[in-house]
């Protein structure tokens, strides 16, 4: 079953304006996940980070595209959407600060199955996919430290998906009364 | 006649009969060329379904041939097997089986007279409309019917497909008090039955007479239900197991039901009219008195529209006899006697509400049924109905189409045909062959 939560972060700067100062945080603050790593891996990853500001309503990645970068949300909120024939786009998950967008950048076939749209002014810390894959392949310390939080994020989404599939809040069946 | 030379009558899906059939007539220049009672009730192959079954299972299965007269099927079957196995049942078992049959007759006759046939005579589409103008009449009919159903329930657990009839007796016989509790409703039924005879005698019947060959059981001391010899107006006199010495089944292309004919290939008539004529001397005195009061015995014999009177007279009989049996009932120590199956041919005929019902089973060495023939009353009456239609149709061809159709439907309904039995009914079509 395709995960409903796979996301790709194809940095899609089309129409990107200048970095916005809107919102309640500084334009470039600490980066979740990365900041929690030991100094070595943290420095080697931080050096590769490219920060991006996304305006609300901007779809910065598209379902089916090759995932070109992995992003960590620094600020703002992002909707992951699927296009369902005859129903249009359906939001299946929203992500916030600390969430990862585009883990498929490091998992074959490196292709996104959802689109990602900013719902609020959003700041992303992005890592180029090819660059990151090479780093993980060559730097076992980065791999050992960085992959677990990525896995944790992915695992949480898989678990959440299962609960969504159960459709817990639906009024199922006919009750005894 | 007003319609010119050629007519085509068609009644699709006869109503107020049990089951599905239709009537088709083809008439040319006032002559009936074709009269067909088409039965398209889907066949259910009961004669094959009982193969490989034990006698008690057969009793349960054959009841499902007809929801109107399941007791009749149980009775013909149980007597056939007991005859072959030489089972001597307790006299109270014999009495209670008559009582069970009486109950079914009360229910079936009351249903037919009040809910199915009376609306015909009084010009209503159904008892529901009839009840709007004649509420008491319909209420009386429902009370009668309920008296029969309550008795069936007391003896067999439910009115339709009762469960207690077993080879050797009953699976359970009621306590005396259970039956005594039904006495008031049966006494009421008897009162209503006698009134019914007067009511139906007063109903106007179309003038139509013919001289039918009649067949029924006759017993020296009882009105025929479970026992007696098969007799006819032309001298047949047979054991109930020997039906097929005088009658035989035929298949016709327009019917899913087999028909039956007498040895000479001609039709014969079963049911209340036949029984009242052939076995009237065994009617309960109250029923004989009611019949005498009508003065209708001869018209019952000759006019099919008068069968409703015969049915009402029988209603008096079974109500009165039911009371007698209830009063004389003593619960036996055991409801059943032990028995052992033996191979051979088991055959018997009893009187269903609508006429003689013949069963014949071949029982194998394993005690199970290997082959079966079941000849329901409606399939035996089919040829008689068709003969009546052919005879009577020209008389109604002058009437407006709706009225003519109604008269012919009413004629068919006077046989109380049970079509799900026969294929196990009605569309009238009169085809203009011009």
């Amino acid at each position, binding site marked *: 079953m395709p995960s409903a939560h796979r996301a790709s972060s194809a940095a899609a700067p089309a129409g990107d304006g200048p970095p916005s100062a809107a919102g309640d945080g500084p334009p470039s603050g600490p980066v979740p996940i990365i900041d929690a790593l030991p100094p070595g891996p943290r420095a080697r990853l931080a050096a590769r980070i490219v920060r991006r500001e996304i305006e609300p309503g901007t779809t910065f990645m598209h379902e089916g595209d090759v995932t070109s970068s992995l992003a960590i949300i620094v600020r703002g909120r992002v909707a992951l959407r699927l296009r369902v024939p005859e129903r249009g786009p359906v939001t299946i*998950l929203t992500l*916030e*600060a600390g969430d990862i967008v585009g883990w498929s950048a490091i998992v074959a076939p490196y292709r996104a199955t959802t689109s990602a749209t900013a719902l609020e002014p959003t700041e992303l810390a992005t890592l180029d996919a090819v660059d990151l894959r090479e780093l993980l392949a060559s730097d076992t310390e980065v791999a050992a430290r960085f992959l677990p939080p990525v896995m944790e994020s992915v695992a949480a989404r898989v678990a*959440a998906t299962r609960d969504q599939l159960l459709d817990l*809040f639906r009024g199922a069946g006919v*009750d*005894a*009364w | 006649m007003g319609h010119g030379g050629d007519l085509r009558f068609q009644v699709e899906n006869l109503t107020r009969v049990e089951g599905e059939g239709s009537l088709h007539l083809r008439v040319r220049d006032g002559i009936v060329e074709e009269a067909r009672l088409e039965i398209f009730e889907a066949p259910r192959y009961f004669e094959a379904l009982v193969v490989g079954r034990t006698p008690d299972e057969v009793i349960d299965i054959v009841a499902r041939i007809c929801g109107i007269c399941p007791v009749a099927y149980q009775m013909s079957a149980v007597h056939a097997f007991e005859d072959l196995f030489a089972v001597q049942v307790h006299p109270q078992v014999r009495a209670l089986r008559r009582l069970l049959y009486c109950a079914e007759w009360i229910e079936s006759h009351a249903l037919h007279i009040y809910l199915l046939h009376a609306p015909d005579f009084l010009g209503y589409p159904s008892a529901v409309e009839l009840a709007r103008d004649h509420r008491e009449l319909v209420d009386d009919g429902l009370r009668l019917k309920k008296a029969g159903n309550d008795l069936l329930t007391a003896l067999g657990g439910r009115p339709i497909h009762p469960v207690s009839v077993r080879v050797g007796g009953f699976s359970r016989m009621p306590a005396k008090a259970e039956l005594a509790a039904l006495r008031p409703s049966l006494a009421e039924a008897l009162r209503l039955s006698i009134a019914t005879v007067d009511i139906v005698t007063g109903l106007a019947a179309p003038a139509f007479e013919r001289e039918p060959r009649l067949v029924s059981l006759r017993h020296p001391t009882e009105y025929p239900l479970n026992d007696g010899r098969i007799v006819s107006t032309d001298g047949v006199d047979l054991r109930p197991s020997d039906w097929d010495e005088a009658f035989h089944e035929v298949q016709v292309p327009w019917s899913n039901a087999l028909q039956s004919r007498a040895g000479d290939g001609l039709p014969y008539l079963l049911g209340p009219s036949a029984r009242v004529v052939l076995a009237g001397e065994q009617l309960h005195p109250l029923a004989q008195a009611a019949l005498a009061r009508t003065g209708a015995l001869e018209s019952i014999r000759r006019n099919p529209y008068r069968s409703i009177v015969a049915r009402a007279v029988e209603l008096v009989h079974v109500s009165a006899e039911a009371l007698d049996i209830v009063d004389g009932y003593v619960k036996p120590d055991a409801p059943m006697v032990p028995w052992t199956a033996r191979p051979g041919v088991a055959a018997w005929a009893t009187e269903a509400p609508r006429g003689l019902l013949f069963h014949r089973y071949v029982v194998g060495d394993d005690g199970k049924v290997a082959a079966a023939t079941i000849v329901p009353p409606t399939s035996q009456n089919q040829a008689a109905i068709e003969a009546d239609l052919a005879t009577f149709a020209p008389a109604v061809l002058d009437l407006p189409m709706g009225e003519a159709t109604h008269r012919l439907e009413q004629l068919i309904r006077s046989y109380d045909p049970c079509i799900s039995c026969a294929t196990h009914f009605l569309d009238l079509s009169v085809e203009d062959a011009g």
Partner: protein
Amino acid sequence: MVVATQPHAAAVAGSRFLPRERFDDLVAVLAGGGRRVVGPTVADGAIVFADLTDGTALPAGWTLRTSPGRARLERLPEGPGSARTFQYAVSGEGIKRFTFPSRVDALAMETDADGTVRVRVEAPPPEPLAIVGARACDLAALAVHDGVLVGGPAVDPDYAARRRDLVIVAVECAVAGSTCFCATMGTGPEVTTGADLVLAELDDGFVARAPTPAGERVLAALDLAPALEEQSMRALAQVATTRAVMGTGAVPANSRSVLMANLDHPRWDAIAERCIACANCTLVCPTCFCTGLEVTSGFDGRASGATRAWDSCFTEGFAQVAGGSFRPRPRDRYRQWLTHKFATWWDQFGTSGCIGCGRCIAWCPVGIDVRAELNAIAGDVPPPAAAPLPRHDIVAQPAISTEALEFSRATVVSVTPETADTATLRLATDDARILAGQPGQFLMVGVPAFAIPPISISRFHPDGIELTIRAAGAATSFLTKLRKGASLGVRGPLGRGWPVDDAIGRDVVIVAGGIGLAPLRPVIDAVLRDRARFKDVRIYLGARTPRERLFVDEVDALAARDDVLVRTTVDRAGPEWLGRVGIVTQLFKTVQGTGADATAFICGPERMMAATADVLGDLGVPRDHIWVTLERHMECGVGLCGHCQLGSRFVCRDGPVFSVAELGADLRREGL
């Protein structure tokens, strides 16, 4: 195991002898004053209790041979004892039919000409009754029923009425069936409690003793000679032989702990292959007390009755709620039955639910033997030293009270549609009990012709309450379609609500999924009324879609406050929804600060509550400060009908609000 035997020599001292030919006189004395007398008779191949006018209908010369799946009448051998009338151990059904009939009228509901709904609790007028031929196990069972039906907080008025004027003539068993194990359970064969008159049958008559004044009056009226010592000794020897034949140790003495430690034992699956879930064991069990309401009405629906009928945990409908049955598999149902009888009954009522009569063994059509099953589950674990079993004593009979089951009238003041299938009814009531209700409590809501659903109170007002109802079935659909001015019957408030005080001085975390916000709304009201007494207040709401959110305006207003944090998420949404999408537990990580200082109130589907409790637990919220509310099938709401049991809990009475610490593993256990 050791069970204290009762020599009851003292009782024997005052014994009289009732010659066999004078048994008719005993029946006549009992029947004096119009008392109905019932006793064993032979009917339909079994021993059945029926009305007695004298002794002739007793099963003279019969015995009943029982083994797993069999109970056959047999003729007693020719000899001096061949005329005995009680020479069998247990009849097919005990005396339960008379004290706790299979069907009784429970409620009468009607709509008056002016539209007012009236609900009346039916209780029979006390009918004087004498039961002849009860056995020690029957009396132990009666004591158990007393504990359940009149010994708890709610009194069953029907039972109380039937128990009120009951004379019991017991018989000490002269034989034991192979299925009997009362000696193991400490309930027999000697009659030690509950009987007014105790008979021991000898070949030529009965040694009779009268433990109660009522029994003494009967003996006095009969004017009997004292029993000879030899007769008394024979009677004692006879019951001692019965005890010896039965032996003890039929089931492990530690059945209770063994069962609760083996809820996932493979034996349950093995039993389920044989068990046909026919419910016979529960219905012949003299202590089973579960019932359901059957609503009947005429075509116009203006008046209806409700019949209380024996029900069984072996049926699927027994544990049915919207969305399915909590015990879908026969395995779950058998486990519920056996654990209830031998384990959780102790927690609920302080006794064993099994009294050792063995009826469930004999009358199981496929012959499942609870003794064998218990021993199999216990395996080779040696039982600990036996503890004495508590005695089953008849409790003092309380007054007949319908209080726990009385309805009051309420009137619909307004109806607010919330979602496509959910509406909030504001009801006016002057029922002080309801107005004083607590957040999380619920009402049983009745209108004629419909089943009576439990509905949580979603807001309290000085002059009434609100009920927020989702149209999940016919009754709830009907309720959501009521209009202003409509009348209905309400009973409550029921159950244990949310312990809002537990959160005083602490952070408050409220998590609601779907309709689960309704029972939590009074908590929010209470916290905001007294906002200063609580620290941070955080509310997390989940819904299936944006359109299925409840109380949207209120939630928006809450979100606008600066002293409350509100986060809403939905399971799925279209692009027009700019809020959060995802499951409710994902909301927590975006908020810092929830931890050991928090009290959490959670309401939603059980799976969601369990997942939420885990996340909160991981964040450091103590499990005894995490509260959830459970949904179970409920018919009575006061712990009498048995439907809502979860392990040893009655969800209706002990809950529906529980802490996660209280529930332990049961919150997640399947089929419990």
